[in-house]
């Protein structure tokens, strides 16, 4: 089953002579359970693609179907609902809300989704347990290490059981050990059947993915499958 279906999407910033073509006709489909790494140098358009995939931005041309729904036709209110229910974000700079405990941060998407308090707490605790932070639930972001903060962010991203987990350079701000922790969590989620799209410029990170797509100047130049969609991710099989 197809989760993502991007059809000839392009994105232009500005107009006339100063126009910047961030994406020039990108097409790709991602099936459920896949683990995709999108690679590219800075300026290759990978962040723009990530914003479009995450429904934070709309393409200038082309169509984008998420779970068979054309995102381009949705209004602001419905986009918010799509972001809440279908997509889980993990950012490079964690983006946890300061002065809120890990538990409250993880509960936040559920609160906006209208989930009742008791149910919210149960699911948030389960998500924190999933990333191995059961003993840190009452800590605020500034009391956690970078790796722990990023794992809280992963818990927040997966707490709504989204169709797609989007990670934008999730290890970019982390040291090697913390990065390995976070990638372990992602591998585990992939093995459990989550669809993950990872954006990175590091080969070490991309090696964890089942499929690697390379972007250059806003176009897909390489799309290589490393293992089958139904198989466990390479990170759990070959790397160790």
């Amino acid at each position, binding site marked *: 089953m197809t989760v993502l279906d991007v059809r000839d999407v392009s994105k232009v910033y500005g107009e006339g002579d100063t126009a910047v073509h961030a994406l020039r006709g990108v097409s790709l489909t991602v099936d459920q359970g896949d683990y995709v790494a999108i690679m590219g140098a800075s300026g290759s358009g990978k962040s723009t693609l990530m*914003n479009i995939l*995450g429904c*934070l*931005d709309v393409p200038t041309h082309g169509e984008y179907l998420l779970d068979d729904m054309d995102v381009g036709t949705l209004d*602001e*209110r419905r986009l*918010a*609902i*799509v*972001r*809440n*229910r279908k997509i889980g*974000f993990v*950012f490079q700079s964690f*983006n*946890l*809300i*300061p*002065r*809120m405990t890990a538990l409250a941060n993880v509960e*936040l*998407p559920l*609160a*906006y*989704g*209208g989930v009742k308090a008791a149910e919210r707490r149960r699911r948030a605790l389960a998500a924190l347990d999933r990333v191995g932070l059961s003993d840190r639930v009452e800590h605020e972001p500034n009391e956690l290490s970078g790796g722990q903060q990023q794992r809280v962010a992963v818990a*927040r991203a997966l707490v*709504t059981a989204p169709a797609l987990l989007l990670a934008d350079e999730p290890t970019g701000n982390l040291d090697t050990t913390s990065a390995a922790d976070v990638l372990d969590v992602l591998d585990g989620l992939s093995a459990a059947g989550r669809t993950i799209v990872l954006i990175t410029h590091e080969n070490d990170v991309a090696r964890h993915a089942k499929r690697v797509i390379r972007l250059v100047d806003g176009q897909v130049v390489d799309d290589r499958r490393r293992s089958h969609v139904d198989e466990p991710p390479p990170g759990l099989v070959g790397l160790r």
Partner: protein
Amino acid sequence: MIGEVIRFALRGLAANKLRSGLTTLGILIGVGAVIMLVAVGNGSSKQVQKNIERLGTNTLTVTPSTSRGGARGGGGFARAFGGGAGAGTQQQTGPRTQAKDLTVDDARAMADTTAAPSVKSVSPVVNASASNATYAGTSHAIQQFVGTYPAYFEASNDPVERGTYFTADDVLNDRKVVVIGQTVDTDLFGTVDPIGKQVAVGGVNFTVVGVLKTKGSSGFQDADDVAIAPLPAVPESLTGYGALNQIVVQAKTPKTVDAAQSEVTDILNQRHGITGANTADFQILNQATLQSAISSSSKTFTVLLGAVAAISLLVGGIGITNIMLVTVTERTREIGIRKAIGAPRGAILGQFLVEATVLSLLGGLLGVAAGVIGSEFKVVGVQPVIVPSSIALALGVSIAIGLFFGSYPANRAAKLRPIEALRHE
């Protein structure tokens, strides 16, 4: 979800306690000032009203007209030409010979029930000022020595506290009795009971029969420094025989005061031979007219005070906008995160609106407390009297201010595009 939004808002406020406190203070001062200043205005108007009521209710005071120069120039001028004398002094003395004094007969005519059905009582009054009274070696200058009829006590709202009033019989038989005010009592008698004692005023001995209830001072005059005696007793010994200083007329009901005024005017016009062309030689002071004139001017005063306070409330409101704009800018990234994880626009709008409204509502409630407490104290001699509607209004306005002045920053927050907000450092 609404509960969540409110919780987020409160958490946002708690994160910046000093800033929230100062913003609240702005509204507190505004609301407190509105309540307090309106209460001061109201209190001063109540005080003036009470002073007027002390002078008596439903009463008309007839006095001889004293403005005989410019105001009556028309009549004087005509006579001056007729007489062939052009001197300015004569212009002034001319009308004076014409003008008639108020007499006891005038007062009697006013008491005629057929000519003046709206009149309840008529009291002719003579005043002797600063009369020296002595008792057992103590002396005291009575500010106001009044000679009148018994009806005066009721008309001028002067009840006795101890003893009795003098009677119509005392007036007819020219008895030398007197009712004294509190100040006279304490100054002359001290702790001695004055009832039945003899006081010498201007060489005549008066027997004290009663002491008036205290009235307090009205302006510069001590209303308790007074003595009231039967009419015939006073002119003989103090003022010499002469005209009346005033006639106090009491109407039957508050509604008939105006009718009584026109009846009294007609009677006096007739008796003094005043026709349309001539200006009257008497003045009638209508208590009710005075009261309404003063209450309308004090209303203006109250509105003015309220307006000044409302400006400070407005400034407090602008303070809210200002601080909320800062908050929104400061938390742009947080807004971006919230939007990225699916916060609908309404939730963001609600969060910042609630923050602004909580600030203004809190300020409003504290302001009401401050205003109510402040109104317990006298302000420049005026005891403020709280107007309940001003509390409701100030509170309502403070909530409205939160919504109104908070809506611009909240809207700005809600309209932020998530990718731009996330990029914000």
